[in-house]
């Protein structure tokens, strides 16, 4: 495992609103690997906030190349998640999060040819809602 302690950007938790409606929340993660990769390498992202679980279907993933769903990832080779780049996750949760501290856990699964045993890289932190 590598970059676990840097994966979750601790100051990045925010509510996600559009047109005055609280759609959910957002946070940022950096790649838990020593190089950038085409998005097709990204197999799964799991998020848990205060014990409530969110899966890949509940979120979108945004990098400099654009915003994508996990269902799109297997066919994306042009757009990349660069090394050190903060990707923004928008997670759907009607009403968003209450102000204050939240316990956040994120798991990222990458498919890397020569590292078949890698598994999910998990990171957790208590994060203040901005």
């Amino acid at each position, binding site marked *: 495992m590598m970059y676990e*302690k840097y994966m979750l950007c601790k100051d990045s938790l925010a509510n996600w609103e559009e047109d005055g409606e609280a759609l959910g929340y957002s946070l940022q993660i*950096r790649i838990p690997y020593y190089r950038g990769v*085409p998005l*097709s390498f990204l197999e799964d992202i799991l998020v848990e906030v205060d014990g409530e679980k969110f899966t890949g279907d509940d979120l979108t993933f945004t990098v400099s190349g654009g915003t994508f769903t996990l269902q799109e990832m297997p066919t994306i080779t042009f757009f*990349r998640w660069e*090394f050190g780049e903060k990707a923004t996750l928008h997670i759907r949760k009607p009403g968003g999060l209450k102000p204050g501290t939240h316990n956040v856990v994120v798991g990222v699964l990458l498919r890397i*040819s020569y590292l078949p045993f890698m598994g999910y890289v998990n990171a957790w932190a208590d994060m203040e809602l901005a």
Partner: protein
Amino acid sequence: MSIKHGVSLYSYQENYYLGKLDLEGCVAAAKNAGADGIEVIPEQMPIGQYPYPTDAQVDHWFSLMDKYGVHPTCMDVFDDYTLYKNRTLRAAEKLDFLIDCFRRAKRLGFYILRNQNSLEIDVIEKAIPYAEEYGVKMGFEVHAPLMLQSERNEQLIELIEKTGTKYLTIVPDFGIFEKHASRVNVNKLIRQGTDEKIVEYLLEAGKNKVPQAEMMEAVRKMGASDKLIGSVRMYANHYNDPELLRTYAKYAVHFHGKFYEMDETCTETCIDYEGPIRVLKDMGWDGYISSEFEGQRAFHDIEMGEYYVDEVEQVRRHHEMIRRYAGE
């Protein structure tokens, strides 16, 4: 005819990841350590737009090289055969990618690629004329647990001898001269809650040169996770006799100077550098040893919090050690 001094900017990966050093900052640090050869993983530290920089970006790269009095050596590429979820890459796709790598490397002034050993021999054979055309060598990394004496290297050497090409080489990684697992890596394993009995077994088995497959089975029986079973290769004894370099170094122009921890006496705490450098010097070998610091990753678990290793200082010590053993 003497060993040349390089740094893979991989050594400064954490600084780069956190935005503390940019590409120029990494080049400057390498220069200050005493290196004149610069190795880059373009997917880690892009040179301009990855994978095809603009002409202006290429000019800027060369002006950076001139500014610091250094030059490009090796460009590291990968054999990403699981690029697609539903299938592995075909040989023709791999060859197409490899030819593009030669082209990209040449444009940026690199004269050798670091390739991975999952690449099939028939692809390599087809790639040789392109390597020769572009003037960019292939360099297949001999990375632990792969040994110098291995079927894979036999195949590569057979191909080199058969074709007579100078554009197919091996890139030995100094991790093959590791005497025992690095304590920084072992400590991480313990912090992550690995059963101490399993850790003790791994260290003993490594000392006793228990075959890797047997070690994997033993820890599986002790209840190890798949992830741990996969990392057993780090503990299996894979020390190569430096004298073997008298046979194998003639097929190499570039070594990865892998290291995990330089102590205050500028000595690596688990890898034999003295033996291999003595042999290389005796042979009059004059390629690059390119520092590849990886010890920063031993402190990436969450328990380590704000603690970090000074990558720049580690590389500086690494070069002091190499110069000391090379008698400079």
